[in-house]
């Protein structure tokens, strides 16, 4: 479990994170979402003990990261900035980490195979592509077979196949009861992966919810078409439902499709169409996190 309580981080006069609190539950994949510059990376680095908070606390598995014994075996992390020496081979980079973390050397080849870097393991990192570097970062995060994973924009640089692999992999890790916090600035990218979301904007919490609840926010209205549209409108209004005849046989109704269908069936009204209008997840995300005027860049 990861806990963030009242976290504030200032760099001079710039407030990166302000009074942020949230919890990441074990056995679930939690998406940490927000536009670029929202404070996601800063928060993750505070959680990992790399950045000092101005105020507030963070804990991983019940303790501040800095107080964890053998943290490499308990928490795996992928940071947005690349953290391997370019002159060292990928395999040697992992050997160093394994040695520092007290992790068996055999695990190095295991994780290299897991991220499909066995062939490139002996090459120097400076020759790696962006995707290969990302995979090496994931290998480093997985090296200690940790209970908790903190992954900052892990899909960056991965091809569609790699993103699908990552998605399935994270789901399988969560199914084993691990705690996973994964950041992204694209909600749609993680929508199929995460159970919960923590959405921040300008360093402040906007929403912490189950992904299902965020998807429910995307439901806008129900559209129905009926040869008896005027009667259906009257019946719905009588039920206290906001319904409007838009044109011809088309009605816009502010109620779930199930409810509209029930009213129509109970009164023998024929329906030619009954569909839910939905906003895209990206639209929901932008509504939660942005001012319309800011969305140009």
């Amino acid at each position, binding site marked *: 479990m990861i806990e963030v309580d009242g976290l504030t981080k200032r760099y001079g006069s710039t407030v990166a994170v302000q009074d942020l609190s949230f919890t990441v539950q074990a056995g679930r994949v939690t998406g940490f979402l927000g536009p670029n510059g929202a404070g996601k*990376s800063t928060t993750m680095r505070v959680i990992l*003990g*790399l950045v000092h908070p101005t105020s507030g606390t963070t804990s991983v598995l019940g303790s501040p990261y800095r107080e964890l014994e053998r943290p490499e075996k308990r928490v795996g992390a992928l940071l947005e900035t690349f953290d391997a020496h370019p*002159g*060292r081979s990928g395999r040697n980079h992992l*050997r160093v980490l394994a040695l*520092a973390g007290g992790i068996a050397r055999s695990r190095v080849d295991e994780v290299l195979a897991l991220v499909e870097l066995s062939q490139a393991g002996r090459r120097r990192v400076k020759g790696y592509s962006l995707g290969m570097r990302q995979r090496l970062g994931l290998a*480093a995060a997985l090296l200690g077979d940790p209970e908790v994973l903190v992954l900052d924009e892990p899909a960056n640089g991965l091809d569609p196949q790699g993103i699908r692999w990552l998605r399935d992999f994270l789901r399988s890790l969560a199914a084993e009861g691990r705690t996973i916090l994964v950041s992204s600035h694209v909600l749609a990218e993680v929508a199929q992966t995460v159970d919960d979301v923590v959405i921040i904007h300008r360093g402040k919490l906007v929403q912490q919810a189950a992904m299902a609840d965020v998807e429910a926010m995307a439901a806008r209205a129900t559209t129905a078409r009926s040869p008896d549209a005027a009667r259906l409108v009257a019946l719905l209004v009588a039920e206290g439902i906001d319904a409007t005849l838009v044109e011809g046989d088309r009605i816009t109704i502010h109620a779930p499709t199930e409810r509209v269908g029930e009213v129509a069936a109970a009164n023998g009204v024929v329906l030619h169409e009954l569909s839910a209008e939905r906003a895209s997840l990206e639209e929901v995300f932008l509504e939660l996190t942005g001012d319309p005027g800011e969305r140009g860049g």
Partner: protein
Amino acid sequence: MMRLYAAELLKLKTLRGTWGFAIVALGLAALFTAGGIGGVSEEARFESRYQFRLILDMAFATGILSLLLGIVLFTNEFRHGTIARTLLACPRRWRLVATKLVVGATTGIALEAVALATTLGIAVIWLNALDVPLEHGDLADGAGRAFVGVILAGVLGAALGGAVHSQVGALVGALVWMFVVEPLCWVLLGLLDWDGVADYLPAASLGGVIDTADEGLPFAGSVGMTLAWVALLTVLALVRTGRRDVT
């Protein structure tokens, strides 16, 4: 701490630059030894403490290399952004600083071992060929001092790297200090009749450990003063590294 120490050594072993330092140490030792034997008169080779000076002349060059490698082994973390991953494995930062200092000493031992083996190898063969008897006491005395000086240089470099973090800043700063700023200080202090104060400056202190001129601080005083500079830089390294946000 032992795991971290072993990992730090593996870091160095898996970089070509480290081996470059060892090769340069070997080359400089060969050059200094060749110059020290072939470039002096026959009489000079029989002078008192000649073989002691032969070893320490080599140690001067190795000491500078050790200082630079000490700087590099710490500042590489910041130059290449590997500090984040290092601190994830070792979140208690004082441990990292302490380990880097020990690694600085270790690289000093390794460089001096390479340089000393080279010097002794050349000196034994060449001096025998010239019928100059080996002064085992002088050689052992010189080797002991050389090891102490080069080890201290490595630790001083690591502490300086931990205090400065910028690789270019630390390397250029160290060289400018040693060869420009401190010599200027010696001159200025001399003009003020405070020559003795110059002996306590960092380069003079470290130089005093491997100095053969019998000027300035005695060997023990030079070691003590160098350790004081190491302590000061270590405190700075602990504060700077401890407080730094790794973004």
